[in-house]
């Protein structure tokens, strides 16, 4: 791995809820090397959005970071002041949220919003408008001049998604974080956005942290992949290593469940039996043991440590030390 841009160490995040403390992230370790694209996959509710909110320090009020560091360009993001962090978000780190309406204001036109985020820029209004139009065009919005004056509700879901990508890219950040940016897009546009992200990455040399459920998109876009389950990282490595030789039973099951890999038509799709464990009352063992198809006695009593499968490919599973 080359020089890291983002280094997350032992990150733990809790949510306070009525029934207690929900441990949404536990001892997370992730590296995003400079100029690389890192994908994050994992079951709904495994903490992907929480991870992103921690990095950009926009966690909800009932959340708290109980442990860990997030090193980015030499600073621990968790130590920055609100002001420093705000500047960081506007210039060095950009985000495309899962729900495009998170970053869009329903009562302002797209033009107003795209101009507003360029407020640090000294250029003329017409230059800013042209930049916005070019950005819209590059994410495939036709007729940008006519459309830019419209309001969010006048666009389709996928268009809003692309607009939020365009807005995130306007600042030319060194880290782009994207929370499922292609879920609302059809396959041809998805491929187009993947190529766009790859081009941007190549042109500006930025790194991308890319959250997606679409294993095919991860395979096509990313260099590395991090597999999460119920608040923990269970496996990570290059996409090729992890997808060709999954070491953790959860990763294996996840790959088996992908309908893209199922050739014959079926009305009953494979699933991983069982439920995600209760993150308020955690048992002492491996977090996946209740759903695992190859449990050992240790699995129910000891949390497995991270072990190397091959160089740069690791998994947290007792099978690796058995």
């Amino acid at each position, binding site marked *: 791995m080359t020089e890291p841009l983002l280094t997350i160490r032992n990150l733990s995040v809790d949510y306070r809820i009525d029934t207690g403390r929900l441990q949404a992230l536990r001892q997370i370790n992730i590296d995003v090397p400079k100029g690389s694209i890192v994908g994050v996959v994992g079951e709904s509710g495994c903490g992907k959005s929480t991870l992103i909110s921690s990095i950009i320090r926009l966690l909800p009020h009932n959340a708290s970071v109980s442990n860990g560091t997030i090193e980015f360009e030499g600073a621990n993001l968790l130590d920055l002041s609100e002001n420093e962090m705000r500047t960081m978000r506007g210039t060095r780190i950009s985000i495309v949220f899962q729900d495009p309406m998170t970053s869009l204001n329903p009562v302002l036109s797209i033009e107003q919003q795209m101009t507003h985020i360029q407020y640090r820029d000294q250029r003329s209004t017409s230059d800013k408008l042209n930049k916005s139009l070019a950005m819209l065009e590059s994410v495939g*919005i036709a007729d940008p*001049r006519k459309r830019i004056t419209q309001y969010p509700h006048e666009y389709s*879901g996928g268009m809003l998604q692309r607009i939020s990508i365009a807005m995130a890219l306007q600042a030319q950040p060194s880290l782009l974080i994207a929370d*499922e940016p292609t879920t609302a*897009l059809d396959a*041809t546009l998805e491929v187009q956005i993947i190529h766009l992200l790859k081009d941007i990455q190549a042109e500006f040399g930025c790194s991308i942290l890319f959250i997606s459920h679409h294993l095919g998109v991860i395979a096509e876009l990313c260099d590395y992949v991090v597999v999460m389950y119920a608040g923990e990282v269970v496996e990570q490595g290059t996409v090729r290593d992890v997808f060709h030789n999954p070491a953790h039973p959860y990763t294996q099951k996840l790959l088996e469940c992908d309908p893209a890999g199922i050739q014959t038509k079926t009305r009953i799709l494979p699933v991983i039996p069982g439920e995600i464990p209760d993150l308020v009352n955690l048992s002492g063992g491996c977090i996946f043991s209740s759903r695992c198809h190859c449990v050992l006695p240790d699995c129910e009593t000891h949390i497995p440590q991270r072990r190397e499968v091959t160089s740069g490919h690791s998994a947290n599973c007792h099978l690796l030390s058995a």
Partner: protein
Amino acid sequence: MTDILQLKNVCVRFRIKSAMGALFDRTSPASFDAVRDASITLEEGQTLALVGESGAGKSTLALAITGLERIAEGSIQFEGREISQMQANEIREYRRGIGYMWQNAIGSLSPRMTVRSLITEPARIHRVPNVNTRELSSKLLDLVGLSEEFGDRYPHQLSGGQARRVGVARALALNPRLIVADEPTAGLDVSVQGEILNLLNQLQDELKISMLVITHNLNVVRHTSDKIAIMYLGRIVEQGDTAEIFSRPRHPYTLALLSASPSPDPDMQADRIELKGEIPSPINRPSGCEFHTRCPFVKETCSESPPPFEAVSESQALSCYFPR
């Protein structure tokens, strides 16, 4: 088999309010068709998948079917009755019989309501008498595989997948005959996606619900739908049996769409038909076949006049002068 839903030449028109449009281009029209000339049929107990480009008009068509968007032209018949001619009380009853799952699962849930009141809200909106909210919510939570504890949570306390289940529960609240699901599995991991689809399939088998599913995920379409309709720029460009279309896509856009889906194997080189050129806008439709500006197989005649939508086999129809 009887048709539960039949759409004929449906158009949905939006006004363009923006003054800027008129300023830049005096020839630009005051309205445009987000859906144009769309005809589809859904047979009772079957699943029809509606796929197509972002902005193609899928959600708009779904809203028209549920009576939430007015149609400018054409007809929509539900069990043989024209919905535009229904009386107010009939419309209410009609809408009660449709379970609608919104595209944006979390955003469409009111943030101040608990899951319990959200999933039973349809009963209040439609003033269904004598509802035991507790009982109904427990039944619905159970149906969609959420534990009772979730009943007291608020939308922001749910993950995307959990919110989606709440959406399914809400759609099921009034025992619908037809479920219209807009992107029911977007944002779900493959295992939970499988669960939701198995759940919808199972509910369909048990309760004989017909379904219209809008999705971008072609793998979902392949495994769960009987029929498929492909939309481009507000029109249906190809329609037919799912298996048939997957084994032999005839319209060039369908071909491109099916070839685009990325494979989970990083070493599998996709053999893609890439679409070039800008995505046209429904405000400014291309001449002739509206796909000609991006079609990899375009010929001269394609830009001259629009190709008719014609059957090429008993169960497959499309609009293209040069089908594959």
